[in-house]
């Protein structure tokens, strides 16, 4: 049995079919798939047992037609009845076994999907936190640049003020 593959986080490839919009949820699709598989199993068992019964009826052990005086007729009918009862029990046992196995597989698949979804959610939260930190860092950097620009503008303005004052003193001593 091969180990499970990690979930794909590539946005170009959808991680699961349930992520695409416009489709039914994953659980309902899985249960629908399991129901159809279960129905196919029931059909196969029914067809096989039906053919078995038909072959029994056509076989020399089949019960004779009514009205014929055959001493072995009650025995054959009894055998067919027993066979039918065994077939019914077999069918029920097979159905129960298949249903139990499908439920087990469904539970394992659900558990695996929940694990994968939890990992994807954790990754998304982590990426969101990183983006928030990057946003705050970038804003702080821009504000620092704006502050430096303002400081230099104020320095040039002070220089201009001093120049204006000195030039006025020079012109009107």
């Amino acid at each position: 049995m091969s180990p499970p593959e990690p979930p794909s986080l590539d946005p170009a490839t959808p991680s699961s079919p349930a992520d695409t919009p416009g489709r039914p949820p994953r659980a309902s699709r899985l249960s629908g798939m399991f129901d159809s598989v279960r129905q196919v199993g029931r059909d196969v068992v029914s067809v096989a047992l039906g053919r078995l019964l038909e072959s029994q009826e056509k076989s020399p052990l089949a019960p004779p037609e009514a009205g014929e005086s055959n001493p072995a007729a009650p025995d054959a009918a009894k055998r067919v009845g027993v066979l039918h009862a065994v077939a019914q029990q077999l069918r029920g046992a097979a159905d129960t076994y298949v249903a139990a196995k499908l439920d087990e597989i469904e539970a394992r698949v659900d558990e695996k999907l929940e694990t994968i979804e939890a990992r994807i959610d954790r990754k998304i939260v982590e990426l969101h936190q990183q983006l928030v930190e990057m946003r705050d860092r970038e804003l702080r950097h821009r504000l620092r640049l704006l502050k430096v620009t303002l400081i230099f503008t104020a320095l040039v303005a002070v220089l201009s003020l001093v120049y204006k004052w000195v030039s006025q003193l020079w012109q009107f001593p």
Partner: protein
Amino acid sequence: MPRPDPFLVYRTTLFIALTAYYVVTTAGGVWRVVALLHGNDPRKRLLRTYLSYQLVSFRIRPLAGELLQIAFWCTILLVIYWLHGKL
């Protein structure tokens, strides 16, 4: 013809150059952002929604120090401008 004041020429040139630089840089940045967010692609819509959420969830408190300093330097600049008018 009166001789131009070199300091005034320097100040005016600096003002014009820096204003042109900031206008061009800001317009280019805005244009790039608009081009990035424009379109009906589902990914673009998701990006627009996410950026809207980022704008809504933005908090000023972590940047309060920088904003206070900027407010202080703007006040200083306004005072200097007022003193220019007084002289």
